């Protein structure tokens, strides 16, 4: 991976982290209600995947979509305004946290129904095949989707119809120890793993450490190239260590606001989440790699973090200032006009 590519991906990761911290703050301040899902701890996978995708590609995400949008290049202002369901949001305030999408980025529709995004992405592959656009469909989804029958149907169809689509399953289910400690499991699968299902259907399938940016980038860039060339579906199981803040029904900032200096200064690392800071937090992990490889200095990391933080601070202001969509707009766009 070139230094430029590494720094670009790190920039996306730290931007996601600061974005999600803002979402958490907004929810704590009761600025939006209901259930929501953060991408903290999985930034490596989303950022590395998006780095190999171009304008003709289409990405379909889930209820845990914020990181995918930001990694793809969504404007944090419009994305954060959508979290608050404001008029300037990506979806005009009609989607909220569950449905952030931006057709101008090739992310036309985000389904918050478990497994919903998987066949839609195959549909994007279908469209690319019909139009011979050279694009591919990409589905980002979690391991729980393998409990839904439509996912099996889709894998079968993608193979039968030779659809250019990459299925990226971010398996963030905790192991047995954490489950027994009371954490929510993300799926109820007898093996805890999902790769055997696409393999049984004859789909080329790979596994990767979803917290290892360079490994995800190397694998995904190769898969994207093969998918474009062969038009065949590919499956990736990205094994992700779950962020401790995601163990219960609502996110809890148990690891605190991220301090990037932990990448080179371990004096503050102790307590329940020491292993998380030392081994798993993908932002800290990649910062250490960048410094060790000489791609960046600690000062560079601090500077990138500052830029991300400033961007999110501006987005917070923008979102808070954005007006709610007026009730007079509620009837618009039930049906599209014309042919």
């Amino acid at each position, binding site marked *: 991976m070139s230094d430029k590519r590494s720094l670009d991906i790190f920039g996306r990761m730290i931007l996601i982290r600061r974005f999600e911290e803002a979402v958490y703050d907004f929810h704590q301040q009761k600025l939006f209600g209901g259930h929501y899902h953060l991408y903290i701890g999985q930034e490596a996978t989303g950022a590395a995947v998006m780095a190999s995708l171009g304008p003709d590609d289409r990405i379909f995400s889930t209820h845990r979509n914020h990181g995918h949008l930001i990694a793809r290049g969504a404007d944090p202002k419009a994305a954060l305004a959508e979290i608050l369901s404001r008029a300037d949001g990506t979806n005009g305030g*009609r*989607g909220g946290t569950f449905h952030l999408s931006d057709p101008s980025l090739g992310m036309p*529709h985000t389904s918050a*129904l478990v497994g919903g995004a998987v066949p*839609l992405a195959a549909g994007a592959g*279908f469209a690319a095949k*019909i139009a011979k656009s050279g694009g591919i469909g990409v589905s980002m989804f979690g391991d729980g989707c393998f409990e839904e029958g*439509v996912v099996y149907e889709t894998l079968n169809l993608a193979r039968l*119809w030779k659809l250019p689509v990459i299925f990226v399953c971010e398996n963030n289910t905790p192991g047995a120890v954490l489950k027994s400690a009371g954490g929510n499991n993300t799926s109820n699968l007898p093996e805890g793993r999902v790769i055997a299902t696409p393999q049984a259907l004859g789909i080329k399938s790979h596994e990767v450490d979803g917290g290892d940016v360079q490994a995800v980038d190397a694998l995904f860039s190769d898969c994207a190239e093969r998918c474009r060339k062969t038009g065949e579906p590919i499956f990736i199981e990205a094994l992700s260590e779950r962020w401790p803040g995601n163990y219960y029904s609502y996110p809890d900032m148990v690891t605190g606001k991220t301090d990037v200096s932990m990448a080179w200064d371990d004096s503050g690392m102790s307590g329940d989440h020491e292993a998380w800071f030392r081994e798993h937090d993908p932002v800290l992990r990649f910062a250490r790699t960048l410094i060790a490889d000489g791609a960046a200095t600690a000062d560079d990391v601090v500077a990138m973090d500052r830029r991300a933080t400033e961007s999110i601070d501006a987005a917070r202001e923008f979102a808070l200032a954005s007006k709610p969509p007026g009730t007079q707009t509620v009837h618009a766009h039930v049906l*599209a006009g014309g042919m």
Partner: protein
Amino acid sequence: MRTISYAEALAEAVCECMAEDSKVALVWGSLMGVGGGNEHVNRIKTEFADRIFHPPISEAAIAAIATGAAMDGVRMIFPMGTASFMFRAWDQIVHEAGAAHYMSNGRVTAPVVFHVVHGLRGGGSVQHSQSPQAMLWNAPGIEIALPSCPADAKGLMRTAIRSKNPTVFIDHQKLNRRTGEVPEGPYDIPFGVADIKREGGDVTIVAASLQVVHALEAAEALAGEGIEAEIVDLRSLVPLDEDAVLKSVEKTGRLVVADECPPRCSVASEVISVVAEKGMDLLKAPPRRVNRLPVHVPSNKDLEDFIGPSPDRIAEAARALCR
């Protein structure tokens, strides 16, 4: 004018649209298997082979694949077979296809054609006889077309394929082999424009799909008794041509609605609600619904015939209003 079958008219519409637009794709399902229009079916098979897809039995995934493709400009026609099967894909039709335009604040469209065959077909029994139009009508964002004759089937199918919205196109098993006059060449029939299939001044009978055929038979019987019925064929439920219904009721003052859905929250209920809200003072008598009875569809032929809205039941309802 030439006379062709309903099935042939449908095949012709699909064939024309595939020839006109290279983004139209077809799942090779029951639409092409109903018989009729062999030259069109053969042309589709050979000329557009790279745009036809043979499906496994996976209604949900195909419905969503069609929806995802539609968001990128492909117009997929997905014949799902018996309407009962679309329940497998309800989530994808209602939550993905039906919601895409609204949820994106108008930035995305998902123009898919979901084609199904509804109704009492003779021995379909409990799980192969559904009429899902009323349930679907409760889901925003989906157009619903219900033709009653070959000419309408062709024009409405062309509109369904060319529309920017997801459309559920609902045929009836007992219409496929019926014949009728169909104009030559391509023509579209817009949604939301009802058609007066018979004029009359005594009673309005609103219907769609096969019930239009039944209503026309009922009207013949009524005419022999000196009662002139006006038949309003809705042709589409979404959009609904409220004006045509109200205008006819204004003329006759009496309303019967024939509908193959069970009565509660049915097509008939909704049409009568519209008239109650917007034209109560036009009515000389309380309106009547003629629905499928509120039971499951039994396999026994006598029982199946008994529960459906028949020409006799429609005529009886109209007669009662005119007494």
